[in-house]
């Protein structure tokens, strides 16, 4: 029995380290899941004289995608969002985070605009309310304004297929 003790200890440590290797330390559990989405009202990116507020989306299941022209990963994610927007399954609102207005507009002109509209969070205040720390981030918000899902980092086609779409269907069906 004692002869196998070092081996047993090694296996336990190896398993724990192995699990640790596959965890993403950037993915911090959000305390906002199943909590009401923080209220906000911001000028729109394209039409600064108009505002967008959280309550405009009341009664709808919708996605809020935090993006910025300076965010490299957003480019990677962008085609996926364009594809999702084309399917018109769920409204997609952008939150242009800590960006210069002209840079944001140029980015949309260059790569295409998947958003129904983008709210303009110049100083990142609303980002703080949503616990944003790594753009891109995506929130799925239900009809009552409760955050049901949060994705930190790039939304991949797999995430759309396996997480977002089933949840959108479920949330639209139940209420």
């Amino acid at each position, binding site marked *: 029995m004692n002869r196998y003790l070092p081996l047993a200890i090694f296996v336990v440590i190896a398993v724990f380290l192995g699990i640790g290797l596959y965890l993403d330390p950037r993915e*911090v559990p959000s305390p906002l899941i199943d909590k009401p989405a923080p209220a906000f009202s911001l000028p729109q990116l394209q039409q600064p004289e108009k505002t967008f507020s959280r309550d405009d989306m009341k009664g709808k299941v919708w996605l809020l995608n935090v993006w910025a022209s300076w965010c490299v990963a957003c480019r990677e994610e962008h085609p996926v969002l364009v594809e999702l927007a084309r399917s018109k399954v769920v409204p997609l609102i952008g939150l242009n985070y800590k960006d210069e207005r002209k840079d944001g507009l140029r980015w949309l002109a260059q790569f295409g605009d998947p958003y129904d509209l983008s709210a303009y969070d110049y100083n990142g205040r609303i980002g*703080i*309310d949503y616990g944003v720390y790594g753009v891109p981030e995506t929130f799925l918000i239900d009809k009552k304004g409760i955050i049901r899902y949060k994705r930190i980092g790039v939304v991949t086609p797999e995430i759309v297929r396996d997480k977002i779409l089933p949840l959108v269907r479920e949330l639209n069906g139940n209420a």
Partner: protein
Amino acid sequence: MRNLILVALIAIYTLGGTARAAESLTTESALEKRVTTLAQDLRCLVCQNQTIADSNAPLAIDLKNQIREKIGQGMSNDQIVDYMVQRYGDFVLYRPPVKATTIALWFGPAAILLLGLVVLFRYLARRRREQPADVPLTDAESERARALLGTTDKDSQ
């Protein structure tokens, strides 16, 4: 005489000025001290092994400004920490709270140390038990040992 009054007035005026400046400077540094104290307990989520006090990441700077603003609104330190936890979760605390999910983190190292000590003492106790007591060699045995070592009584004398 008039000049003297003028000089005196200027002196008083400037003195008052410096006093006022010094006063606002101390309240300002007290505020900054509070900001720093709070910031030292909060983790920068962009650069996870730094506090927001140590970090110059844009988010850390925003959060420091946020702390300053909240202090300005008269919030207590606890309220400000709660404000951060509501948004970023317990992870934002550099000193995680003791909870069911953090028990292993808080007490794991001590438990492992304790376990190690128990194993060590049991091992030592067993070794002591198994060790034969000190019995002096018999004459024949010491004779044999001497022969093997190639020494004689003469050599040792």
